Structures are given as C-alpha cells and as structure tokens.
C-alpha cells in the first residue's frame, strides 16, 4: 500500500543528528585550504565566561561575551557586518586564545594581535584606536578619549562607540570611565568591567 511505503520512507529517513560530523570536519579543512573562509571563529574559555573570537585575514574582528549576547546573534552580526562566509575554525584562533590566556593569567599586559578595523566607521575607529593607547592598569574618561580621537566635544558619541566595541578586552574599553571616577557602563556588564580592572590592579577588589 502506498501509505505504508510513505510512512516507512519518512521513518527511515529520520536520521540521528550528527551523522555528517566526519564529513563536516573534512569540509571545514578544505574550505580553509581553498581560502573560502572570510571569517573564522572559535570559542575561547575565560574567567569571565565563554567568549566567541573571530578573525579575518586582516586580524581580529570580534570578541563577544557569550553570556551577554548569544552565539546566533553574534554570528549573524558577523555575517551582516563582515561577510556571510563565516565558519568555525578553532586552529585559526590559536594565537588569540594564547594571548588571552596569558592576559588572564597575569602574564601579559598588552596584546600583539592584529585588529581588523575595516568594518568600523571612521569615528568609531578613531575612538577605539585612542582606547588601545590607554596602558594596562590605567584609565581615561570618555571626554579624554573623545579628545584623543580628535573630536573633544563628542564625548557622548564616544561613549556610544565604546559601547559598541566589537573587540572588548583586546581593545580595552574597560579602561574608559565616566567622569568623577565612576566606572560607567560596559559591553559585557559592569561586573566584567570591574573584574578586568581588578585583574589589572586599577581597582581594589570590593570587600565583603
């Protein structure tokens, strides 16, 4: 009977998820070998929770706190802002992972990673370049960063640009504080900002 065959076909085709895992791993290697991956990403564990790091051939293009913005949204943003040819390729992020590990272990105070500035608008780029220049353990105000970015009156816009920092930690927007010694906001939540500043010795751990 046709109906039985249809049911059998439907049932037989219900496959265990992951049956293509081996083929998928092979495909990932081949896509890299053929230079077809515009954005390679990987998960990186850190004391501040899991991160998603992404790189192009120009350099690091994204570092997201997955506890703050989920993976789907992060990947979609990369597809929209950089290129839809986004693939998971952990080996491409080995250098990034190593420098982040060293930083969190207190063995590194500046990053030697190349940054891909190309997806950023000009003003944001100037603000974030000024932010990179703030040394480990120090801090600056939004107004000071705006001034160094060449737009001294644009401190609100500088705050917005910092709030949309696509590469926190490496572009150290946690070193930018509000006026009057207040910490201000942070792309990963204020607790993460505090933790980074404590790690750098710029802030005393809170007692009690």
């Amino acid at each position: 009977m046709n109906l039985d065959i249809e049911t059998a076909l439907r049932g037989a085709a219900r496959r265990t998820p992951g049956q293509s895992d081996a083929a998928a791993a092979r495909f990932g290697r081949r896509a890299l070998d053929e230079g077809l991956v515009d954005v390679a990403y990987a998960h990186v564990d850190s004391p501040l929770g899991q991160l998603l790091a992404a790189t192009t051939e120009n350099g690091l293009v994204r570092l997201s706190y997955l506890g703050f913005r989920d993976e789907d949204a992060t990947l979609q943003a990369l597809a929209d802002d950089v290129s839809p040819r986004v693939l998971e390729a952990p080996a491409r992020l080995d250098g990034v992972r190593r420098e982040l590990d060293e930083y969190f272990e207190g063995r590194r105070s500046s990053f030697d990673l190349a940054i891909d500035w190309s997806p950023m608008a000009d003003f944001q780029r100037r603000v974030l370049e000024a932010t990179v220049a703030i040394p480990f353990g120090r801090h600056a105000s939004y107004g000071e960063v705006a001034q160094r970015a060449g737009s001294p009156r644009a401190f609100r816009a500088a705050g917005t640009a910092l709030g949309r920092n696509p590469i926190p930690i490496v572009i150290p927007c946690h070193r930018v504080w509000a006026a009057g010694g207040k910490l201000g906001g942070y792309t990963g939540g204020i607790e993460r900002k505090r933790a980074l500043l404590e790690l750098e010795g710029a802030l005393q751990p809170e007692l009690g």
Partner: protein
Amino acid sequence: MALPAFQAFFDTHRDDVLGFLTALIGPNDAEDAFQETFVAALRAYPRLRADSNLRAWVLTIARRKAIDTARARGRRALPSDDLPETPTPPAPDGQPELWAAVGGLPERQRAAVFLRFAGDLTHRDIAAVMEASEDAVRKNVSDGLKKLKETLA
C-alpha cells in the same frame, strides 16, 4: 532578512544533504559529493539573494554534484531514466529492503520520492531542486511510489 552565517546554514542542512546524496548515489560517493556540494555553496554564498530558499538551493547543488560524481565514476549518466541500481544506501532504521528498492528506481523518481517523503519538500520545491516542472515532479513521485509498491509487494 539577511543571509545567515555560513556555519549556521551548514549546520542546518548538512545531515539532510548527506542523506539525500546517500539515497542518490550510495554512501561512498555521497561523502565526495558532500564536499563538492558545500565547497560550491560556499563559493557562491556571498552572491546569493537573502530571500532565497536555502534548503532547495543546496539540494539543487547536491543533486548536480551527485550526477557529476556518478559520471566521474564512469557509470551511465544519471539524468537518463534507465539508471542501473546504485549501491544500497544504509538503512538507519533497519529497512534494507525499502532502501534497496529506492536505490533501484530511476534517478528522477528516486530523487523525487526521497525529497517528497524523506525531505518533506513541497512539489514546488522539488521542482526547483530538480529543475523540472511541478507536473513532471508529481509524475516522478507517483511513478516512483508505484514502482516501490510493486517491488515490495
């Protein structure tokens, strides 16, 4: 609506594509055709319209690659409707007779029957995948079912 990141697209469709290729050309060749399918998809991906039917699109590529792979093996060309039987695809739920019978169908019927029932595609989407008219596809499905019924009777 924007194109999803390729990894998300790939993870959504890779099991379906491998299943389809396995039904078309058997497990050994399916693995090679799988690689060719997604390499071609990745190459073309940035130029794809964001509102495309991604599932139909990748299955269309897969079917073309299955035909190429089978040709490269020196078999008779797949598009003809008198294809010799292919290796039996693995039967995940222990239905070897069923899959042997599907493997024995002419290629167009095999593809259409698989997409209709295993892939749960509409006739319209199957027509897109097979680059044929909806009427032709309906006939492929019903002829294929009829033949399966005879074989399995």
